[in-house]
């Protein structure tokens, strides 16, 4: 297996009186090509900050205090900003948490997809516009939803738009932050089914980030549990109950068992 993403000893700090606080405090995380990783942990455990750091999109005044991030062999943290920017979209893509705020409320959905194709794949506007309905259809949206503004769509439909944007660019690394939170179970399942397309593309990898162990579903090959800024357990999905040792992981496993349907029920 070839490593697509390697995060080593990553620390992310926020300045504070009496010295910085470290919400991400020494994260080690790998992702192979073709692999699906579920990154789970409570709110505030540092999952989203880690993903933002990979993208180079940390909010001010957060800073990287230590560590290394390598993507497809390139050292991201020592890359010139202009070169790093070029990786956004086609090489790595993050669908932000909260589909309502991640989309531009003043632009129709179709225009946002078209713009992504123009800026990300270098298509001409007319060509991108012609491809837009096809992309919407790929995520099971009606072609005429292109004319809708984000507020006119349900949460599940907006999440589909986000995934359409991601799939349009065919990124090597797709990270989805809470892609199913706030959606009902049937919609959650269909969103996971869409994300599975990323898994089927050779060389690509997928990271699903969620507070809900159940939400990474049966798509993940491996599950990493974050707690207070560190990865405290990291195991193949099927071996998680056997291998996880941290009390927080045990709590997640118990909750995951008690709040799911039993295995044999069909």
């Amino acid at each position, binding site marked *: 297996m070839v490593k697509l993403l390697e995060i080593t000893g990553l620390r992310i700090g926020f300045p504070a009186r009496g010295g910085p606080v470290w919400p991400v405090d020494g994260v080690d995380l790998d992702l192979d090509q073709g692999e699906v990783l579920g990154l789970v942990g409570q*709110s505030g455990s540092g999952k989203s900050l880690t993903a933002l750091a990979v993208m180079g999109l940390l909010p001010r005044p957060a800073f990287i205090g230590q560590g290394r991030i390598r993507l497809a062999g390139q050292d991201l943290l020592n890359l010139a900003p202009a070169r790093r920017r070029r990786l956004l979209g086609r090489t790595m893509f993050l669908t932000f948490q909260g589909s309502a705020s991640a989309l531009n409320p003043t632009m129709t959905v179709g225009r946002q997809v078209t713009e992504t194709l123009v800026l990300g794949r270098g298509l001409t506007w007319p060509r991108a516009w012609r491809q837009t309905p096809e992309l919407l259809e790929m995520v099971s949206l009606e072609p005429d939803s292109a004319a809708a503004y984000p507020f006119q769509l349900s949460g599940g439909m907006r999440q589909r738009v986000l995934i359409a944007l991601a799939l349009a660019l065919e990124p090597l690394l797709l990270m989805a932050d809470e892609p199913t939170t706030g959606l*009902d*179970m049937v919609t959650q399942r269909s969103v996971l089914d869409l994300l599975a397309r990323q898994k089927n593309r050779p060389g690509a990898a997928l990271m699903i980030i969620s507070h809900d162990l159940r939400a990474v*579903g049966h798509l*993940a090959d491996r599950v990493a549990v974050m707690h207070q800024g560190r990865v405290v357990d990291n195991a193949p999905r099927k071996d998680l109950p056997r291998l996880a040792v941290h009390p927080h992981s045990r709590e997640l496993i118990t909750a995951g068992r008690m*709040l799911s*349907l039993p295995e044999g029920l069909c």
Partner: protein
Amino acid sequence: MLRIENLVKRYPAAGPGQDKEALAGVSLALEKGDFFGLVGQSGAGKSTLARCLLGIERLTAGRIWYGGREISALPAGRRPEVWRRIQMVWQDPHVYLNPHWRVGRLVAEPIKNFLAPGKAAVQARVAELLDRVGLPAETARARPHQLSGGQAQRVAIARALAPGPELLICDEPVAALDLPWQLQIMNLLQDLRGRAGLTILLITHDLGLTWHFCNRLAVMREGRIVAQGRPAQVLAHSPEPYVRRLVESTPRPVWTARGGCG
């Protein structure tokens, strides 16, 4: 204990066109001590049903009996009699708990409103309620924003318990919480049911919550109940395709195989 017969709720259409039928003839019966799961997707009519039970929503047709008495025709002035016995817990406590008030005052308010005891008795009751939902006494001095989602939801449950209700309607009580908190709140509800003899109506989109906790289950779709019974019976044997689809979409423990469910 609670009997609902042929409940219909129609909202007038905003423009020309058909009225929206949120409830299209719902019948249900809850027995004392039930942990009753009412499950369905967003828009199925679950929350409308809860609002009708509390009398916040006017029925288009149908009747509701509680404890042998019809409550669907009560005038507005007599609804507090119902609210003493039926209380409600909503989805996001940080939205509906007044952020300016301390927990002690938040829990004291319904005690004063419903029971109007003396000052010392209010304080004692607040302490007792916090203890019952598993919060330390000093939580009374905190404000909602200082609490985690799980703690805030406990405060909301303490408030709901204040008038000494017999039935607790919980509308997505854990949907806004992190997973371990979800289990803690479900355990608390089960504990209240066992120790205090409460009857619980759990409204949720998440079928996964029902299996280990509910003794009865109804599945709603587009304003109708499409299946009803014990969870094992409904989820394993209902021939209704919609129920099958819900069952398929609901997570199994992630470390297991999907169990041939597609």
